[in-house]
């Protein structure tokens, strides 16, 4: 079971309190009339699915209820950082691959 650091509660809590929310920073188009089917399908279904660092959404469902973003290594499950929703995507190349305290 993972320990996940909630950036709102400012503490590491067990995975059971959280719900995974898919890849983060996937931009939503604004005007459906000018969106092609291919663009829309890409937004709906195509994700990066990397082996390595993944930027993803989590919700502290059974805690503060807030959505936030995280960078996780999909190979080791190590969380490199978590940050509040709305904050810019971090430069993953600058993050060291170590487990959060």
């Amino acid at each position: 079971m993972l320990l996940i650091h909630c950036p709102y509660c400012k503490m590491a809590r067990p995975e059971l309190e959280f719900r995974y929310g898919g890849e983060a920073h996937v931009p939503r188009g604004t005007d459906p009339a000018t969106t092609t089917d291919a663009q829309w399908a890409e937004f709906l279904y195509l994700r990066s699915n990397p082996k390595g660092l993944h930027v993803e959404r989590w919700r502290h469902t059974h805690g503060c209820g807030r959505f936030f973003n995280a960078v996780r290594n999909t190979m080791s499950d190590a969380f490199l950082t978590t940050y509040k929703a709305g904050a810019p995507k971090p430069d993953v190349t600058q993050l060291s691959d170590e487990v959060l305290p």
Partner: protein
Amino acid sequence: MSGAFRTPVGGRIERGAQLRFTFDGATYFGCAGDTLASALLANGVHLVGRSFKYHRPRGILAAGAEEPNALVTVRRDAARSTPNLRATQVELYDGLSAESQNRWPSLAFDVGGINDRMPSSLLSAGFYYKTFMGPGQAWAKLYEPAIRRAAGLGRAPHLPDPDHYTQRHAHCDVLIVGGGGAGLAAALAASETGRRVILCDEQSELGGGLLSERSATIDGQSASGWATETAAQLAARPNVTVLPRTQAFGYYAQNFVALGERITEHLAAPLHNTPRERLWKVRAKHVILAAGAIERPLVFPDNDRPGIMLASATQTFANRYGVKAGSRAVVFAADATGFAVARDLHDNGVVIASIISPNPREALADAARTDGFTVHTSSVIIGSQGLRRVSGACIGTLEADGRVTAFATLPCDLIAMAGGWTPNVNLASQSRGTLRFDEARQIFVPGVAVQAQLSVGSCNGTFELAAALAEGARAGAAAIGETAARAFVIRGGTTAVGGMHGAVPHPFDARKVKAFVDFQNDVTAKDIQLAVQEGFHSIEHVKRYTTSGMATDQGKTSNMNALAIAAEALRRPIPQVGLTTFRAPYTPVTLGLFAGHARGLAFDPVRQTPTHAWAAANGAVFEDVGQWQRARYFPRAGETMHRAVARECRVVRSAVGLFDASTLGKIEVVGPDAAEFLNRLYTNAWSKLEVGRARYGLMLNEAGFIIDDGVIGRLADDRFHVTTTTGGAARVMAHMEDYVQTEFPELKVWLTSTTEQWATFAVQGPLARQVVAPLIEGIDIAAMPHMSLREGRICGVPVRLFRVSFTGELGFEINVPAGFGHAIWHSLWASGKAHGMAAYGTEAMHILRAEKGYIIIGQDTDGTVTPDDAGLGHRSQQTRFRRPAGYAAARPGCAGPQAVGWPADDRPDGRAR
């Protein structure tokens, strides 16, 4: 007397405490401190099981968790019967009753043994895949059930498990897995300064291999004496939790380790309120693995007869349990352990017929000869004799040119195999650390750890006792940030050096002999060679094709030999072929341990509405809708479901019906931007909805598919009462929260789930107004238009009254604080009596809705239905921001099924017209 094969003195058993037990119905006696395996061997019982595929007679191979053969069912009563337990781990108690498995009609005479005499091409690697193909469903219906009957493990009891299981979390600075020498030394060092330490070991007593050690001394004490004293010292420290009988079976991310503690398994009469097992969910800052090593069997033809055992096991049985595994032994010593074992067996009164060493000349052989042992060097065992017990060992000579020539057959009733030691890297690998191949010693040892974790002692390839203890002490100190090293003075003892991998050479036709690699799954050297020959070049494929390493023991004694044979067949070095992946659990775990208390009523919450007791008293038949229990229909005496439902529908259509809709999800959406928020989440517009009016809302996901619906009423400019489907309440709330928080953070809107706060009753039918009006204060009910809501009082209680129809009739939905629900229901019921009102359930509600063409989310939709498909396209309005709703509107749905109203049969017999 507790067995004819008991040594006169020695061992850690309590010779005075005699325990009675049965095996396959026969009564035997053992001692306190015995395992089932040691007690059986003390009574001369070696035949304990039949093999998986060939039904060959099998005996006890090992003395610990790695045992592949001696799987037994231990039965306390009809419900408490545990199959597939390793007899080497079952602690003996008075009255224990054990049975062998996979034999019919009896262990001594097993019909399935005919499999062993079939031509060798049958039942070889991939036999199932090649033979039992087609036609059609023959595998699932015919072959598989038959094979499962013939090739079997034990059977689970059919009764519910009457025991209970518990779970707990634990946090510590240092978790030490394994209480052998290295683990004890690590625990001592780690607990020196008061840090929290947990030390677990799967056996009843700490000490590991030290408990089987006769010659070595630690700091002037006997090895086992040092272990006992150290264990006592640790137990006395308040910061140390010592967990015997506790298997660390899974190692997960961030140093989360799962331990299974057996609490009552060793007791003759467990108290009924004591949990049987406890799951420890340990989060450790540092983990020290001291899991030990496992001795390898030697892969020679017919190496599986009862009486052929691991050398270290015969040593453990002799030194720790005071049991002679035989009277006359041949020791196949591919490493130094074999020579030490021969001496220990000799000292315990076992005649050593010969020590067989594959090496041409070595100092150990010379020393053994000096002490009077017969040693055959440059020799191997090439076969065995015997039926249900080994009676002789066939010896071959290794010639200079690599050939093997048969030399002699030595009568014996015990063959001790010392093939060398394999570090137990299972947990280290589970922790996702890398493994490194030690070329010189041909073993895998832990490489780079990816978590705060260290391996010490023989699981790290450190076989020498002094070095293992020092390594443990060093790791224990390092884990708490200390550097103090401690040296231990060791005298005597043996260090494992040497060993052999893969198949032992022999002079026979390889296709006609069975040299077992994986005892539990009956995989032979030939099977692995055949798999490679047939094109399986990845070790993972070889494993699955041959099933080597796939039994309940997960190849603890077989993986390295299988790998070596595959590597030789592939002509590639061992590290290039690689190991298969280690996975949890290390040893089998009961399902009860995972379930804990979450079973029966505690498995999932049951939600009941405020009228549940009334409905039950009035004969309701309930159905489960998610966690909710809802009244499905209210049959009268002698009424079938069809008649009851038809009657309920008729009453609603012709008079008035009362329905408990409290399970509907309710969300209070509040804030200056509440209307704009709903605009974006539902397909239709909400900004212009007047206060006091309600509207049907349809919710879509980003792909434009319907995910929920419900009536939404506007209580004020900035306040909406949103209803959702029963099953969708939590999902819709989460969906809305997601958009509020992440997509539209600029909107000022606040969401509150109020499902549990409101009891909701639908009064539906032409006479609905007459039933409701007399109870209402402060609302002009006659002036309420369709799809409107008012706040007022009912029977003095605050009410949100909707004029809305669930079923297409005139109807009201009465929302009252849930605490008053039961009382208001009674008042409505009393008020409706004069009008012939009946309670109706979900079944009638579905029919009434279907007649009007109202969709039911989750029944008429399946996640692939668009508003157009559902005939609701006209409700979707395109506005600039309204996506996902807008997207669907911009792209008319494909011509799918269309929902239409359909009059249901209302004839009392329910038959089709």
